[in-house]
């Protein structure tokens, strides 16, 4: 007999409420030496605007938020159940709609339908700057959405496709940005051959350099598995951060540099300068997002993609079938690093400055949130997750509601991730395979993985 508390829905709601409670306290006022409990009491007692509608005490706001989250999710569940019941009962109208939906789904699998959908999305993306003409918005879209998409797509190759948890991904982004600064001669270190190169030259250099670092880091560390790899990559991220923060003579130290020139090219009669106006940057970054999308989705279904899946599922078996695990893992690392390196060039050349505080661990986590939120291993999911989350972040940055304090951003992202794990552990739009992996682990019905584990232990003990 199950008690009330064992009901999974009650448990989920309870956990959601707990997280929101934690957020009330964390985002509330601070305590002080004379009034140590002020942070706690103020978190509940103070008044705060509820989306500008009314102005209740803080605890009321968060209670309402909890009710909204729980209410929405149960509403969706209830609607789904109602739908299925009607269908079973043979309701004609419902059956007809269900049929149409199924047909649409079927059609969506078709290549031509998909391609036209992509074309529409692309057309919209191309038209976007004419739709949103506010330049501060456009800048945010480039810096907070498109660059993050590039990074998320790259991390998705490492974490989603190859299954390697990389917590130091920001390091490659930093390497890309600092390489740009170096090549264009904006660092204390003299640029290569003493020439202040055009920023375009920085693109291949940064990509190659980031890739090289990925390979150099990967070869010794990718023999490690799971948590150990995560720790090593975390350490790598910190090393890079500390290096750029402390080597004043090489990287400019904690002040970094603000001398990076705009992107420009000058080929005979053709001249173009990407100036302060964000629109050209928007198109440039968009072009690269599209290129990465195409490249990575063809990679997913290639020989390389299949060997990543095999390694992710069972490394020993993959090896016995002739797949060199280290080679393919390093490849995933290098590809991820290359996209981060490129994103670094874009950021550096658009913001014109690089400083160490950008490249901290929380940035890596932010990118990881996008990948997990969207659905690991699913390019479509990652793009959509990135658009939703970063679009929202851009909105918060552009016109912050009074309820929002910019310092709390990562807390909200963390809460989002936890709530996501409660309600949809495989992400918004998981790839089919990933969804199966997660649901089987959850239900504890992954017989073979269990057996494989036992098998592995036996091999080790059989000495």
């Amino acid at each position, binding site marked *: 007999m199950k008690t009330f508390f064992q009901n999974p829905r009650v448990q989920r709601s309870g956990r959601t409420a707990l997280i929101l409670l934690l957020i009330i306290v964390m985002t509330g006022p601070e305590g002080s030496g004379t009034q140590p409990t002020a942070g706690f009491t103020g978190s509940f007692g103070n008044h705060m605007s509820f989306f500008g509608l009314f102005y209740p005490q803080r605890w009321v706001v968060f209670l309402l938020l909890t009710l909204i989250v729980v209410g929405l999710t149960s509403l969706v569940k209830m609607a789904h159940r109602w739908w299925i019941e009607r269908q079973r009962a043979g309701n004609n109208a419902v059956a007809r709609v269900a049929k149409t939906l199924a047909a649409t789904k079927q059609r969506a699998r078709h290549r031509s339908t998909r391609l036209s959908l992509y074309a529409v999305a692309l057309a919209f993306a191309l038209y976007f700057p004419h739709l949103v003409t506010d330049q501060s918005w456009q800048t945010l879209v480039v810096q907070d959405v498109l660059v993050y998409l590039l990074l998320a797509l790259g991390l998705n190759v490492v974490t989603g496709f190859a299954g390697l948890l990389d917590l130091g991904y920001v390091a490659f982004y930093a390497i890309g940005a600092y390489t740009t600064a170096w090549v264009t001669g904006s660092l204390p270190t003299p640029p290569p051959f003493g020439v202040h190169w055009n920023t375009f030259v920085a693109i291949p250099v940064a990509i190659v350099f980031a890739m090289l670092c990925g390979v150099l880091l990967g070869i010794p560390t990718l023999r490690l598995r799971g948590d150990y790899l995560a720790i090593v990559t975390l350490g790598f991220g910190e090393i890079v951060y500390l290096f750029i923060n402390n080597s004043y003579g090489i990287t400019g130290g904690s002040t970094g540099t603000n001398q990076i020139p705009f992107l420009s090219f000058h080929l005979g009669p053709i001249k173009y300068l990407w100036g302060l106006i964000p629109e050209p940057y928007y198109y440039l970054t968009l072009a690269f997002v599209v290129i990465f999308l195409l490249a990575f989705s063809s990679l997913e279904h290639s*020989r390389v993609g*299949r*060997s990543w*899946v*095999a390694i992710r*599922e*069972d490394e*020993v*078996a*993959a*090896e*016995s*079938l*002739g*797949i*060199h*695990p280290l080679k393919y893992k390093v490849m995933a690392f290098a590809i991820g690093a290359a996209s981060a390196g490129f994103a670094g060039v874009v950021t550096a050349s658009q913001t014109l400055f690089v400083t160490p505080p950008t490249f901290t661990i929380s940035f890596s986590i932010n990118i990881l949130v996008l990948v997990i939120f969207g659905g690991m291993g699913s390019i479509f999911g990652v793009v959509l997750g990135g658009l939703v989350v970063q679009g929202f972040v851009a909105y918060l940055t552009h016109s912050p509601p009074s309820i929002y304090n910019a310092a709390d951003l990562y807390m909200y992202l963390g809460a989002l991730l936890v709530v996501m794990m409660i309600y949809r552990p495989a992400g918004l739009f998981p790839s089919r*395979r990933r969804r*199966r*992996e997660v649901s*089987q682990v959850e239900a504890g019905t*992954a*017989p*073979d*993985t269990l*057996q*494989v584990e*036992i*098998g*592995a232990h*036996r*091999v080790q003990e*059989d*000495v």
Partner: protein
Amino acid sequence: MLDVSSAVVRYGAIEALHGISFEVRQGEVVTLLGANGAGKSTTLRMLSGLHAPTSGTITFEGQDVTKVKAHMFSSMGISHVPEGRRIFPQMTVQENLEMGAFGRKDNYDDDMEKMFVLFPILKERRKQLGGNLSGGEQQMLAISRAMMSHPRLLLLDEPSMGLAPMIIDQIFHIIGEIRDAGTTVLVVEQNAAQALRLADRGYVMENGAIAFSDDAAKLLHDPRVRAVYLGESVD
């Protein structure tokens, strides 16, 4: 075909194999018997490149393969069915078989059909996930996956582990068919009776060394084997 001579394998300070020597000739089924901890699995790990011997040599078709890495073996013509089957649980049966042909550049559709003839159940389950198959079906899948690379030598690690007697019969029958089709087989087993009935020759391992070897038919009636592995008391 396969020649192992005085191979020593160490795990750190512990010597797991004390210089074992044996051979597998073209077209045979050879079985390696032994209790838990006798060194059977270590031997197979060594043969598939997962653990290199500290001394001694392994030659395959006249080539020295002692230092060859694990992922190179399948392209050299040695296929390994690992202990515990290790199929890819989230891939369909067909995808598993395709992974088996990873190293091949030519068309392998015929070979997949051949596997489906050998194991008709796999054809039925073609679109199902490997992880949802029964233990016996998984073993069949693991064997056919290994056969997809066209090996000349097939290494089987405990194919009977955890399976029902009827399924074991079926699997051993098919191992015989694989031999008849021209693939040499080395099978490591605890189920001595089954293995010896199928095999041409057998080696018995004890404490990391080969204790004795003989023709399978003779081993089947050897009192030492009968006492230890077939559960009969020595009169």
